[in-house]
């Protein structure tokens, strides 16, 4: 998956991955893709909820063991 930036939120629990994601996405240009890495079990539901609510695009998500990888295209 092609990405323009990465945010490593491993070790952070709710709501910090979301709070940091909201800040980080603003550093990207519209159309660029951010990779978010998180191991908060809540992230699986929380990150798609965030993209849905903010109008950004979830391009892909995958899980390796207990770690989630989200690829989010900045839309808004």
């Amino acid at each position: 998956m092609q990405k323009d930036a990465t945010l490593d939120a491993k070790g952070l629990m709710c709501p910090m991955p979301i709070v940091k994601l909201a800040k980080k996405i603003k550093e990207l240009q519209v159309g660029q893709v951010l990779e978010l890495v998180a191991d908060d079990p809540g992230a699986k539901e929380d990150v798609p909820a965030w993209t849905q609510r903010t109008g950004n695009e979830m391009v892909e998500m995958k899980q390796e063991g207990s770690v989630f990888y989200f690829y989010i295209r900045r839309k808004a």
Partner: protein
Amino acid sequence: MVEVKRVVIAVSEGTFDKAMMAMMIANTAVSMGMEVHVFATFFGLNLMKKGYKPKAPGMYRMFTGMFRKKMKAVGVDDYPEQVKMAAELGVHLYACSTSMGVMNVKEAELLPGVKILGAAGFLNIAADSDMQFFIG
């Protein structure tokens, strides 16, 4: 663009759990692009005071430091940083004017950016809200 939702949170207690819950909901909501208003009343008014460090409730009071340490370990900042972040992210913070009188809190003791509001002012904001939380 998605429609902006308005969240109102009323807090009437100032213990660690309630203070943290109020700020975690507020900071998550504002990070989701929502408009957030936090109204602090009675013992919750302490949350709007400079330098306030909430303690865990009742007999858990002595374990406050442990809770703070555990939250810090998972990247969740302590209350003073949470409320500072809320203000920076654009969360609207209000102090109940009657509670200020009852609790003897002066305007100069409030955190920067906290507005003083009465019940009618808060209800006016809540009347057009999409979600309401009461933490007390």
